[in-house]
Each structure stands twice: as structure tokens, then as C-alpha cells.
């Protein structure tokens, strides 16, 4: 036994020539050979025995049966016990026959024929596609010669980096969004001169669409961030979409000589002191007129007391009626900014700033999420024919809360009545507006679905086209996006722009700047009853605009 070669300890794996792979070898104790055919033993596959022949075991009652030779990873049973000379030859390997293993993960050239056939047979087309197919073909519009000319000019402006885009008097009735939206890529070619460092300059686009019989301005116009001058003068548009509020860089807007009945309330947001809009040409237009307006002839827009929540901008000596008094100009902080600690100071003088004064408010038109009116009061519909004179619209006192629909007054008003939670219909519509297939949605409705839903979805698409977005409009109170506002009303504002200068009297000290003859109607909307207009005092101005007050010189 001493001449026995010492072998490294046996690994727990052994080569199984039958399956050409390693198998786990059962580790046996030196003195505890388990009975071969015991039920409790492991299955024979785990055994190292290639030939579980009983003869292999019957060598003088020895426990150790086999020896292993060769490298450890090619262990084949070589001999039982060399000392006793009864050598056991390794079993000859069974001849390997080449055979394809289907899950081998190896792709073979011969796979292509069989596999493709199988796949093709399995998939097959189902009879009913999951998404309903549209039966209506989409209308194909051929651009008119005028539109082609407009496209040519737009592309030329982009090519040459020109900021002025003159598309006036071409007889355009419509202008597709596709070409117009490419204007957002326009960048200026900067002037490089000696001694002036190169600077990136944002383009200040100027678009002149005046003199065209446009029914509505193209929606893509309102996604042009760097638009600074927009002229839609002498067009046939009846409504300016709320998306005008996106044009934060707009300095001049000309919408005179159109069919506008009112302006979007979002325009007021551009007229705050932070806004750049300083020139607004909106007359003449057939604007809705209030049946009566707040009589503040006696109530001067110049306050006798200092306003609350306002920031002193400038003070100067009064003249004329205010001789001997000090006139102070204040920046109205408004409800929106109450409680804001750090209120940004406007730029120092000279400063051109808007003065606004609420003149009248119409009753509220309440609708449900489908757009069906639920209140007595209705806002006048937009007339379709030409040359309709300005309409007179009913008003209610804005110093009180707005009147609710009759049905609401008869029930008990709870906090939930004024809940800001959108209806399920509204939530579903918002989801519809976000889908990529928004335009095809009406066609996906089934025949059994109510017909007015198709109308609702068509309205959504029209609203999306007009606004150059997914179809939502902002709530005038909380600024949340809403598809179908639950309330709409018109507010008339008197507007004027005031030039505050270091020297000299305040421009509108005698309120001559404020255009009282022509109050301008603005369409406002609320996403829920929680966003209805609050009672407003007389002399209410829009936040971010200027207010005046006087004090006698003795006090100051």
C-alpha cells in the first residue's frame, strides 16, 4: 500500500462520458458504502460509477473501488486497485453522434428553413385587428399658390437667417403649421466686427401676416418662442387663441381691423411689468360692449389712500387737479403674489408700464365637461357673417360673488360644490389630448357610443389646432391646463400705458392715458367652481400693473 501513488483530493465533480458533461459526484464516506439498491440512496445518475456492475465492488470487501488517473478534469475511472492487479480499463467512450440541441442558443444556418416556417405558421393574422381601422380617408389639402409663395418666403428667411418675415397681402386663407413651425430653428447670423466679442443672440422674429383673409392664425405661430413682433392686422380671424400667452418675448401685437369679439385673458399676463409687451394695437375691432360699466368717473383711478400689497415705484409732484399733492406710482402685487416674501423689483426708471382698471364683468356661463351649457346666461356666439356690429353683453356687479346656476342655488351649497377636482370626463379628455393618435380618436369610437362624444373629441382637435398644442387651455385663476373649462366669462378692462420718468410729471397723473371710452373685453375661464372670480373692489387693477395714489404734501 505504501507504493500507492498519492493523488490530489477528489473534486466533487466528475466527467460523465455518457452525457459529455460534468456531473456532481457523490462524496462517500470511507467506511460507509451505501447499499446499491437501497431506496433511500441517491439515484444512480449521481454516482461516479460508469458501470454499476456488481463485479466492480466485489474486490475483497474493499471500500475504495476506483482510482482516478490523468488530469482532474478528465477523470475517468481507470483502475480498481493496482496493488491487486485486477485492472479495470476505462470504458470506451460511446461514439458521439452529431445531434442538434434545440435550446443550445447557437444559431445554425440550417435553422432558417425550419424555424421560419414554424414562426410563420404560429403567428398568422387574426381576423379582427385590435385597433379599429379608419374607414374615412384623411383629407389631402393641396396648398394654394398663395400658400406656396408663403412657404417659399419662410424657407428663404430660415436660409438667410432673416428675422423679418413679410407674408403680407398674399390672399392667404390658411397657412399650414408644418412650414411655419420650422421657423423655430431660425438663428441669427451674428455681425462680427473688430473689437466686438462674439455673442450668441436670440433671434427676434417679426412676422407680418397682415392683409390676408386668414380665418384663424396658424397654431404653430404660438410656439415660436422668439417672436417679438406679430401683425395679424386686416385679417378675418374671429378669435385669438389663449396660446398667445406662450409668446413671452412679444413686444408688439397688431390685431386691428379683424373680426375679434374679445381677446384672450392670457394677453393680460403679457402686460405685467415683467412682460415685454408694450405696444398693443387692438382698435378698431367689433368688440363686445358691456351693457353698463362701473361708473368711476367720480371714482378716480387715482386712489386717495396708499394701496395694500403694493410696491412704491416712483413719486412726483402733482399738477392740475392734483396741484400741491404728491402723486405716487405703485406696482400692484395682486392676490397671486400675496405672501411672497421676495418680490422681484422691477427695473429702475425709465419704465413703461401698463395701467389697468376693471370696468365690468359679464355673468358666468357655466357648462359641464361636455361643453353643454347649464346656466341661464349664455355668452354670444361668434357670428359667422361679415360686418356684424359690436354686440352688447349683459353684465353683473363684480363687487359680489358671481351668480350660480339656478339648480345650484336650490341645492345646499357645500365645500364640495366648489371642489377643484376635475370630473372623470375631464380627466379622460386630458388623457385623450395627450395620446399620439388624438386626431384619429373620433374614428375609434364604436357605433354604440353616444354621438356627442365624437363631437367632444372633434372640439378637442379643433382646440388643439388653434393653440398649436395638445388641446388644453389654461385656467385663468389657477393656470392648470384644462380641456373643457366649466365656466367662462368676459371681463372688460381699461388699458393704458404709462411712462414713468425720473423727471417730470407721471404720465397718467390726470389719467388721460387710460382709454375709458373703449374698454377691452377679455375672455376668462375657470377649470372648476373653485376658480370662479372673487368679488373685486372698485378700482381693481391687474396684478403686475401700476396704480396711483395721492397724498397732500403736508402728510408726505
Amino acid at each position: 500500500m505504501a507504493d500507492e501513488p498519492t493523488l490530489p483530493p477528489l473534486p466533487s465533480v466528475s466527467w460523465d462520458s455518457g452525457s459529455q458533461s460534468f456531473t456532481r459526484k457523490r462524496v462517500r464516506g470511507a467506511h460507509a458504502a451505501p447499499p446499491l439498491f437501497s431506496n433511500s440512496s441517491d439515484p444512480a445518475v449521481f454516482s461516479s460509477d460508469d458501470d454499476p456492475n456488481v463485479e466492480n465492488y466485489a474486490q475483497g470487501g474493499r471500500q475504495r473501488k476506483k482510482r482516478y488517473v490523468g488530469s482532474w478534469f478528465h477523470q475517468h475511472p481507470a483502475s480498481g486497485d493496482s496493488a491487486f492487479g485486477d485492472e479495470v480499463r476505462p470504458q470506451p467512450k460511446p461514439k458521439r453522434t452529431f445531434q442538434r440541441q434545440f435550446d443550445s442558443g447557437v444559431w445554425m444556418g440550417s435553422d432558417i428553413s425550419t424555424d421560419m416556417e414554424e414562426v410563420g405558421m404560429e403567428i398568422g393574422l387574426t381576423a379582427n385587428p385590435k385597433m379599429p381601422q379608419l374607414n374615412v380617408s384623411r383629407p389631402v389639402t393641396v396648398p394654394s399658390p398663395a400658400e406656396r409663395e408663403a412657404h417659399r418666403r419662410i424657407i428663404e428667411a430660415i436660409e438667410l437667417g432673416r428675422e423679418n418675415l413679410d407674408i403680407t397681402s398674399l390672399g392667404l386663407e390658411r397657412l399650414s403649421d408644418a412650414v411655419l413651425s420650422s421657423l423655430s430653428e431660425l438663428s441669427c447670423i451674428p455681425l462680427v466686427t473688430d473689437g466686438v466679442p462674439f455673442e450668441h443672440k436670440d433671434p427676434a422674429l417679426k412676422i407680418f401676416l397682415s392683409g390676408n383673409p386668414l380665418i384663424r392664425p396658424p397654431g404653430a405661430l404660438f410656439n415660436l418662442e422668439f417672436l417679438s413682433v406679430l401683425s395679424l392686422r386686416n385679417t378675418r380671424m374671429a378669435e385669438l387663441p389663449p396660446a398667445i400667452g406662450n409668446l413671452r418675448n412679444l413686444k408688439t401685437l397688431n390685431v386691428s381691423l379683424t373680426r375679434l369679439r374679445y381677446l384672450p385673458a392670457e394677453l393680460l399676463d403679457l402686460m405685467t411689468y415683467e412682460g415685454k409687451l408694450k405696444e398693443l394695437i387692438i382698435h378698431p375691432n367689433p368688440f363686445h360692449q358691456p351693457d353698463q360699466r362701473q361708473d368711476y368717473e367720480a371714482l378716480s383711478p387715482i386712489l386717495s389712500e396708499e394701496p395694500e400689497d403694493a410696491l412704491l415705484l416712483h413719486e412726483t409732484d402733482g399738477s392740475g387737479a392734483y396741484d400741491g399733492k404728491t402723486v405716487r406710482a405703485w406696482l400692484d402685487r395682486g392676490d397671486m403674489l400675496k405672501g411672497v416674501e421676495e418680490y422681484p423689483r422691477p427695473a429702475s426708471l425709465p419704465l413703461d408700464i401698463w395701467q389697468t382698471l376693471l370696468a365690468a364683468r359679464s355673468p358666468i356661463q357655466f357648462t359641464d365637461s361636455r361643453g353643454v351649457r347649464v346656466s341661464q346666461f349664455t355668452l354670444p356666439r361668434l357670428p359667422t357673417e361679415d360686418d356684424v356690429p359690436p354686440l352688447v353683453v349683459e353684465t353683473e356687479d363684480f363687487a359680489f360673488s358671481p351668480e350660480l346656476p339656478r339648480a345650484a342655488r336650490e341645492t345646499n351649497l357645500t365645500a364640495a360644490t366648489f371642489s377643484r377636482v376635475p370630473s372623470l370626463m375631464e380627466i379622460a379628455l386630458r388623457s385623450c389630448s395627450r395620446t399620439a393618435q388624438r386626431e384619429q380618436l373620433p374614428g375609434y369610437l364604436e357605433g354604440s357610443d353616444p354621438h356627442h362624444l365624437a363631437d367632444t373629441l372633434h372640439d378637442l382637435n379643433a382646440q388643439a389646432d388653434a393653440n398649436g398644442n395638445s388641446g388644453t387651455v389654461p385656467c385663468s385663476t389657477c393656470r392648470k391646463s384644462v380641456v373643457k373649462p366649466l365656466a367662462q366669462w368676459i371681463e372688460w378692462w381699461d388699458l393704458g400705458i404709462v411712462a414713468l420718468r425720473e423727471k417730470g410729471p407721471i404720465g397718467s397723473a390726470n389719467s388721460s392715458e387710460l382709454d375709458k371710452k373703449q374698454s377691452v373685453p377679455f375672455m376668462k375661464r375657470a377649470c372648476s367652481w373653485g376658480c370662479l372670480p372673487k368679488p373685486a373692489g372698485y378700482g381693481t387693477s391687474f396684478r403686475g400693473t401700476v396704480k396711483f395714489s395721492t397724498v397732500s404734501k403736508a402728510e408726505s
Partner: protein
Amino acid sequence: MAEVSKYVTLISNDGFEFVVLREAVLISPMIKSMIDSKMMEKVVEYFHYWYKNREKEDVPDMDIPAELCLELLVAADFLGLDSKKPLQQPHGGY
């Protein structure tokens, strides 16, 4: 999910239960979409979303997957969830 039962139980306002053959009930497209668990889950989620936020100033958004938007639109129309619930008058106020 449990095996789909052959019957659907409809419970009336006054507590009567009617066990109806599922295939027969599917004639109503509304009930057909309502007994779909994905739809029912969203509608129930909305009830709780409304209840939880009804007196809040700042209401979080409720998310609706795009593939359910049309079905929910039809369901909202059927359930009268298109207008203000507290205003619904038994005799029709408007």
C-alpha cells in the same frame, strides 16, 4: 384571477340580487366595459380621488393610461361623471 363565472350578479337599489347569464348581459356595451376589471379599477380609483381631494386647494393629477381614455370617456358619460355631482337634481333642474 379567479375563473370567470358564467353569471353576473346585478344588485338593485333596494337590495335584490339578480343572477344573470354573463353572455346575455354583454348586450349592453356599458355593462360589458364595466365588468372589465381594468375599467372598474379606474372608476373606483376616481371615486376615491374625488373624495380625498374634494376640499383641497391644490389637487394632484390623476393619471389615466392612454389605452383606457376612450373607454373611460364613455363610462364617464354613462355614469354622469361629466358634470358636478352635487348638482344632479332628481327632477332635472336645468
